């Protein structure tokens, strides 16, 4: 085991899992309580456009995808804010268009790049050290922003109209929430992949929300749950030679089902 931990790729995987878990725990909780899982899905698939753009232009993938996805998330936030009856349609368009844009750019990129698969299904074991530093930077940003505006995020998530009446800058924070979601999504794509990113962003907070009575506790427990799922999934992936992203999600799903069952049984007792 110690030999395994001595390998750089495994150290990177653990660090990436830890950093992504923190982001998922915090932002995933906001996504879940605001019922914005579909929006997060739209952001995630739009991120593929950023990945395609990075490959096409020969730029570093993570910063390029972050920039592209943040821009797309802002457009989505502006287009959907206060128009809940139309927001799903707008998100759907962005979802499809972002994905198509990425695929087209991939088609136009000379020589098909095999790394593409890691963005579809994730590869925790392939995260380079340079990306770890970038992820750390993004985590500090997410943590700082959410801590600073914690009560305002709580207020607008619980009751947006009341939050507005008390002077909470609702529109600005709504847009900021989408930006942070975009940042987190791109970060987690490295681990869980585009297809499974929503699960990692959703399952730990949903599990945590079953057992907590405040938003910060949900965020903390979701972070721990996410880290636990990453470690278990990674071990499963290593020992059974499975895809790491899918293994993590399988463990997380099983964990949620068990937790939900436990909660239901306890409620009936």
């Amino acid at each position: 085991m110690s030999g395994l931990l001595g390998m750089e790729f495994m150290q990177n995987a653990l660090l990436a899992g830890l950093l992504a878990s923190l982001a998922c725990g915090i932002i995933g909780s906001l996504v879940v309580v605001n019922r914005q899982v579909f929006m997060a899905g739209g952001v995630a698939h739009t991120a593929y456009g950023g990945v395609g753009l990075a490959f096409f232009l020969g730029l570093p993938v993570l910063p390029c995808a972050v920039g592209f996805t943040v821009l797309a998330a802002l457009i989505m936030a502006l287009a959907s804010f206060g128009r809940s009856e139309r927001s799903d349609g707008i998100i759907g368009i962005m979802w499809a268009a972002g994905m198509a844009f990425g695929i087209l750019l991939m088609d136009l990129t000379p020589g098909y790049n095999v790394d593409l698969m890691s963005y579809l299904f994730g590869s925790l074991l392939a995260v380079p050290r340079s990306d770890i530093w970038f992820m750390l930077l993004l985590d500090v940003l997410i943590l700082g922003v959410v801590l600073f505006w914690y009560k305002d995020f709580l207020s607008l998530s619980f009751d947006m109209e009341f939050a507005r009446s008390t002077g909470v800058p609702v529109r600005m924070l709504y847009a900021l929430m989408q930006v942070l979601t975009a940042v987190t999504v791109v970060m987690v794509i490295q681990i869980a992949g585009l297809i499974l990113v929503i699960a990692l962003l959703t399952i730990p907070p949903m599990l945590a929300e079953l057992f907590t009575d405040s938003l910060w506790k949900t965020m903390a427990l979701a972070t721990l749950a996410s880290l636990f799922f990453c470690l278990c999934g990674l071990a499963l992936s290593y020992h059974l030679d499975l895809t790491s992203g899918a293994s993590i999600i399988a463990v997380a799903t099983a964990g949620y089902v068990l937790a939900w069952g436990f909660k239901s049984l306890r409620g009936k007792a």
Partner: protein
Amino acid sequence: MKPHDHSCPSCSGHGLPFIPEPHFRPLPGTGTPVIELRGVGFSYAEREVLSEVDLTVTVGDFLAVIGPNGGGKTTLVKLILGLLAPKEGTVRVLGADPLSVRPAVGYVPQHAQVQPSFPVTVHEVVLLGLRRAGGMLSGGRWPGYRRREKDKAMEALRMVDMADLATRRFDALSGGQKQRVLVARALVSDPALLLFDEPTSNIDPQGKICLFDLLSALSSSITIVMVSHDLISASTRISSVAVVNRRLIQNRSRELTPAMLELIYGTHDASCPLDEYIRGVSSIFGQSGPGSTP
């Protein structure tokens, strides 16, 4: 501080021991305007919602604003809160621009408007009422609350008879209990004015009685404006009534005039006290008046 009787059968029985005087009382004395709307007009895109609206609410009033759906009730509330700016006319609250007196105005939306499932305790919901505008980068937004703030929230919960449930999750409460917690959230900042937007929607009949008992008690120390189409539950508790359906007609008593009835229902041939009108409506519609569930 003065005691209040409280004999609501659906409450826990602890009653409303005290309704404290609000700390923020810039305009003492009955008859002082709390809300003044003059020639207010508002439209969404090309659709005119309010036109030539005049409204005066004075200290101590308990005003019910009634009207059909789409008649402009919620728009009126948003104008008073400063969430919308009038296209025409002026809105003054406590003699000032609505945005500048936010701490003095408590807002109680429908409980159905808040997130139905949310990890937050009753106590923390009330603490959210202490958040008041102070600039985007002002402090006080970090997690955690001071002892003084927690005590204040508990005091507000005691006022609505919900202190016993302070540690419970908000989404575990009944509709009536949730609405009382939202009242406590509005009360925690010691408002001079309370604004209610359809406070009895999605609440069972017993919960409504309980809520209106509470509002009656509060109305002795706080000016209340309640937008509702639940005329029957409110009828015996309010001090004056206004009808809004694009235009607004206000009466300083609880009497619905023929002009008011015509504004709501198109036509009516005689003036009658609100209670009599409700009895008349009830006899026609069975146990329920139009748009109400007693």
